[in-house]
């Protein structure tokens, strides 16, 4: 029973569906997240809800792959270097 929610007990289970050779890191972190959330005081839950909901929404939206570049401008004949040209002076604008 948590202090933040008297009268309510939150429980979660971790069930291994096979011979546990190793526990993936993200599974450990997920477990820790549950523990932290359970121990948060009630006023913090609204903040956590907003953050988690935002993360869930972001990661569950369909991904659009960037469109590949159709054609690179590699066919231009730009291997010619012209002679040095001096930049002309600028014009001072009228008042």
């Amino acid at each position: 029973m948590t202090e933040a929610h008297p009268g309510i007990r939150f429980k979660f289970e971790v069930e291994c569906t096979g011979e546990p050779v190793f526990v993936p890191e993200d599974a450990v972190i997920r477990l820790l997240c549950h523990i932290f959330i359970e121990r948060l005081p009630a006023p913090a839950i609204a903040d956590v809800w907003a953050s988690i909901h935002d993360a869930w929404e972001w990661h569950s939206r369909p991904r659009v792959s960037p469109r590949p570049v159709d054609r690179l401008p590699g066919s231009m004949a730009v291997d010619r270097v012209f002679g040095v040209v001096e930049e002309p002076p600028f014009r001072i604008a009228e008042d």
Partner: protein
Amino acid sequence: MAAEDAQAAGAGEAPIPPQIYVPVRLGERLFQGEIIEGVLEWIAKYDASDPDQVVGVEPRLQRLAVILSQDCDLAQDWGRRQSELREVTDLRSVLMCPAWPAEQLREEQKLTTRRWEVVRQNKDERYAYLADVPPSADGAGQGHPALLLDLASYFTVRTSELYRQLRDTSGAPRRRCRLATPWREHLQCRFAGYQARIGLPMDHFVPEGRRPSLPI
């Protein structure tokens, strides 16, 4: 008594004017407000009959240019290049502004005295008038007459390319001098302010001579 003597001895000496410019030496990093002679700007060359057809590159010689890039960016970039000359850094390009001898522009363009005074006193936000460079502050030892910058006209050179040009010993760019504090910051603010200007559909006050004539 000693203090009075010192005061009396110093009474006849002219005050030392502040130094607007500091000479730049070979091997130093680039500085904001640095004046460089002979920078090459690489631009695309287009076909004379087809302006959409690139036919090569043309080096455009900038007789004099002033660096406008942020000074701390230039310093950090230089630090990273100490281990690798062609290091790809956050400072992809160096922002520069062409500079021209101010009096030459005035002569060639026949500016009126009234117009010239506005420009020379830095009261036109588009232009930056920089004082003449004394020979003692010039890395080339020559000095230079006062300069004028058009803050609407600027260009960039890849940072690694600019340092390459500066390492070139075949008579390419010469590093002349740089603006000292607070003149460097003054130019920085003027450039930033000009780029951040807001174009209004109509000014709050329109001088009499510029008001549109009545339709009747």
